[in-house]
């Protein structure tokens, strides 16, 4: 004997005899039956017992079947349970309305217990197949997320790059991405990008972009040349309409020069060792869209201990909706002032906490990278 729990069915009907008839015929076939003779009890049972299927009478005093199914579908605990409704043979409108509200099938009354049994079986089979499909897909996406996280370099593994990072992919396969390129002992490249769309294809693309960065960000090419070559390849391989916004920082710690290439990305924030925070804005086309794209390029002189913050738009966009004083990147400047005393290792984390509060989480994918000269 297997220990498997039997499939359970919730039967809802104000007619006691109908309930009993359903109960008798289904339990004989090995189903576990919950019965309710009104809507509120039915909804409570559905939430507590999570039956595999619900048989729901439409015509009931008090809360009728339409109201019950609407409320079941609004509740995330119960909205995936298939509902078959029981309706009078002549009521065409009520059948249509039932389907509109999310029912999977109907049984006309008077019903025959063997028909009930047959329909319950069919819909349980369908539901089992759908659930295993969903579970399989979720498992695959989970693997992609794991692979994606494994591709992201950590500060510990790159001690000479002097950076700290906050990375959060809210969906199974996130659209945000960053990479660190150790071009030479004293030259480091920092890349932050945000793909348009958050689907599984996007997350496969991050692997391609990582490979392109490794191939093209070398001492032989200038930062502008590197990004142009990456752009030209992406134009070829990205699907039409897909692109990424990106920011590439190329820091030479001996010449103290920092080149920032901006491809449609939010501005970089400079936290100089002395003075007020500055936004480094530069207009530029997005990556992977146009063959002859023009990017915003700036080279600036930096001092030891200057810090730079690069982030994806999740930071400013979420802040706009959540925090009333924020009107975009510009209005985040006062916050950066408060980061003067924060060690650079903690800047991304502290920034997120300041913006989103201790408890709540960002509502979009987010990357925040802090770099120290």
């Amino acid at each position, binding site marked *: 004997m297997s220990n498997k729990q039997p499939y359970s069915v919730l039967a809802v009907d104000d*007619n006691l*005899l*109908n309930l*009993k*008839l359903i109960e008798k015929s289904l339990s004989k076939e090995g189903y576990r039956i919950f019965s309710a003779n009104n809507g509120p009890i039915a909804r409570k049972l559905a939430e507590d017992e999570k039956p595999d299927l619900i048989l729901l009478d439409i015509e009931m005093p008090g809360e009728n079947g339409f109201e019950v199914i609407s409320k079941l579908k609004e509740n995330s605990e119960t909205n995936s349970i298939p509902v078959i409704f029981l309706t009078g043979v002549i009521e065409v409108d009520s059948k249509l309305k039932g389907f509109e509200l999310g029912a999977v099938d109907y049984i006309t009354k*008077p019903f025959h*217990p063997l028909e009930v*049994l047959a329909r319950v079986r069919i819909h349980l089979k369908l539901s089992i197949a759908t659930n295993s499909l969903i579970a399989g897909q979720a498992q695959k996406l989970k693997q992609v997320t794991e692979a994606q996280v494994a591709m992201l370099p950590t500060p510990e593994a790159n001690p000479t790059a002097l950076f700290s990072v906050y990375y959060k992919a809210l969906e199974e396969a996130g659209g945000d991405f960053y990479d660190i390129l150790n071009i030479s002992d004293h030259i480091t490249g920092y890349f932050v990008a945000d793909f348009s769309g958050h689907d599984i294809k996007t997350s496969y693309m991050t692997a391609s972009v990582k490979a392109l960065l490794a191939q093209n960000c070398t001492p032989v090419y200038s930062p502008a040349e590197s990004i142009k070559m990456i752009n030209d390849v992406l134009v070829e391989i990205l699907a039409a309409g897909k692109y990424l916004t990106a920011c590439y920082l190329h820091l030479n710690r001996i010449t103290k020069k920092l080149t920032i290439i901006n491809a449609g990305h939010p501005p970089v924030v400079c936290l100089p060792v002395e003075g007020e925070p500055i936004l480094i804005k530069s207009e530029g086309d997005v990556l992977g869209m146009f063959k002859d794209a023009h990017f915003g390029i700036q080279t600036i002189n930096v001092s030891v201990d200057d810090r730079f913050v690069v982030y994806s738009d999740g930071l400013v966009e979420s802040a706009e909706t959540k925090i009333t004083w924020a009107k975009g990147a510009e209005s985040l400047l006062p916050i950066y002032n408060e980061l003067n005393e924060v060690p650079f290792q903690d800047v991304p984390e502290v920034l997120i906490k300041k913006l989103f509060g201790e408890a709540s989480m960002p509502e979009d994918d987010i990357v925040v990278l802090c770099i120290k000269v």
Partner: protein
Amino acid sequence: MDFKNLASKLGLDEDDFQELVELFITTSMADIDKIKKGVASNDPAGVSAAAHSIKGAAGNLGFEDIYSLTLDMEMQAKDGSLANFDDKLEHLENQINSLESQ
């Protein structure tokens, strides 16, 4: 009435069917009371609801005579008329009683 045959049509054994019939009689008697009160107080909506309840159960158990009788009562009451309900009620009670004696 051939309970054995009705039971097998529903895929039930006779004992289970007998149990359902007893439940049907009890609930129908309660509904008949409601119909009588509804007729006395001229409440067609109440009468229609009670007749609907007997109809549903009778239909599911395969009691065709009771089903068509209560369907007729439900429809007539829905139209707002309770004419000749005394006769209909007597007929219905006889039908239910005949189940009891089996």
